[in-house]
């Protein structure tokens, strides 16, 4: 791997710049609708939610939801880009083949796609954060720390998605990934309701889900607190990212070496 990923990243940025406004609307409109409908609608019914099993730490439901759903938005944005869009470039348009006729290696193309999907996730997250600030959901100065953490979340989920990109024969395959992997994870990771509600067995599984660890890191920052176990969650995220990216590289190489 070398600096040659940069022109590939720039290529994606140039294409996206042409479609940025419609893509921005698509990227942030849906998460905001969830937030407004659930946060204000359900929030009025739910009232306050206790965080981390601690009956004394209660937060408004909208804050609880906002801090979880921003992680979900990072996950979805990175996954969409590293699945549907990367697959289009790799398999349908053969853009990768063209690039690799120039002195750019496959590893650098994969690295560029991974960072690009993470960048798009960061962009989406930033736009949503701005709206959350404007709505006054949180004014915690620790959001500045949440921002790079969310970039890390984007990197992790784009790395995982690239594994499935390497294995895909067509777009249909990605439906399985979304419905069988990402959607269950969304419900088990404490985005919409406290994980304390889950049965103990399910909760034990939930402890190890990448999205859970992301939410556990980001949620306290929204509440102007520090995470209780930053190292534990951080290590889970980093190890997941490294293993996933390594696997994505190996599988993509296998796909291209025939």
């Amino acid at each position, binding site marked *: 791997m070398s600096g040659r990923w940069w022109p590939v990243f720039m290529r994606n940025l*140039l294409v996206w710049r042409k479609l940025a406004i419609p893509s921005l609307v698509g990227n942030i409109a849906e998460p905001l609708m969830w937030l407004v409908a659930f946060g204000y609608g359900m929030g009025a019914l739910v009232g306050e939610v206790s965080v981390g099993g601690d009956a004394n730490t209660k937060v408004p439901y909208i804050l609880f939801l906002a801090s979880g759903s921003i992680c979900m938005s990072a996950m979805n944005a990175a996954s969409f880009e590293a699945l549907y869009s990367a697959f289009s470039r790799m398999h349908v348009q*053969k853009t990768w083949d063209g690039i690799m*006729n*120039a*002195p750019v*290696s496959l590893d650098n193309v994969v690295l560029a796609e991974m960072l690009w999907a993470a960048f798009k996730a960061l962009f989406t997250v930033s736009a949503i954060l701005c709206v959350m600030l404007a709505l006054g959901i949180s004014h915690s100065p620790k959001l500045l720390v949440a921002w790079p953490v969310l970039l890390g979340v984007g990197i992790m989920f784009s790395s995982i998605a690239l594994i499935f990109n390497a294995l895909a024969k067509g777009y249909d395959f990605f439906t399985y990934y979304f419905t069988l992997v990402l959607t269950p994870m969304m419900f088990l990771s404490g985005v919409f309701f406290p994980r304390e509600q889950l049965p103990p067995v399910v909760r034990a599984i939930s402890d190890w889900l990448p999205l859970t660890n992301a939410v556990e890191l980001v949620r306290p920052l929204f509440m102007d607190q520090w995470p209780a176990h930053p190292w534990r969650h951080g290590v889970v995220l980093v190890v997941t990212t490294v293993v996933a990216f390594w696997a994505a590289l190996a599988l993509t190489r296998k796909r291209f070496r*025939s």
Partner: protein
Amino acid sequence: MAPQSAGWAGGKHNAPMQQTLFEARHLFKRYGDNTVVDDLSFSIAPGECLGVIGPNGAGKTTTIRMCLGQTVPDSGEVHAFGLAMPRDELAIKAQLGVVTQFDTLDPDFTCTENLRVFGSYFGLRDTEVRARIPQLLEFAALASKQNAKPGELSGGMRRRLSLARALVNDPQLLLLDEPTTGLDPQARHLMWERLQRLLQQGKAILLTTHFMDEAERLCSRLLVLDHGKKIAEGRPRELIAQHLEPEVVEVYGQGALALAHDAEHAALRTLAARVEVSGETVFFYTRSAREVLAALTAATALGHLRTLHRPANLEDLFLKLTGRQIREDA
């Protein structure tokens, strides 16, 4: 830069001694029991156009892929510019221009942007690439289409844009995989004219094609592949002279096949060195077409038979070497 091994002619930097720009030695590639490329060796000298021809499934595309490091040969070596594949893959690609069988142009970019972005993959500076773009578009006859996207271009224009894109790094050697397949005659002629220009500028070309007129027109040397093996190599005219009689009389129309099979026409057939049948047409390969034509007129009521007298060409050679049967497995 040291020579890679004995017999290797040397790299770009000792150019005056340079005999070989590109060399493939004893390439083998098997998929299961199927040997796709079987002990193939060839080389390309600076300024030369080497054509690789062969039926579908002969191993042309696999050979190109091995040259590009996209397919790893089971054994054999590829050297270019004094460098070795796959070790120096990126350094080799920096000096290559590639046009693949299927366009890989960026559909979201205009012609100009396609060239600019592709230049960036070579690490070229944007100012440098921008300065060359008008010249490249001019070469591709696309100056008036600089702001059009590939989807708005005709097939011929897209191929020429691919060619211009392959020239963005000013390569010494171009690898062209079926550059005119699917183009109409006008677009093909324009492509040929441009490729001739590149050869005149001293660039070397490795070209695969299905079109014998293309091979004859452009290539200084030909490699005929079949079942992954090299079955002939040489200059087009010399290959024809070596393998074929100089003249051909084609006879077609109702009753033509009788000329090839019926006993009453045995004398006619002895005038030809070789008689072949393909579909409804009989081919007489001969050194004296006049005698064959005279005998034909005498022997048959030529009224409903049509004849064509022409010199033997590359297509005859190709069909002689690779057979007239359609390859069902191809």
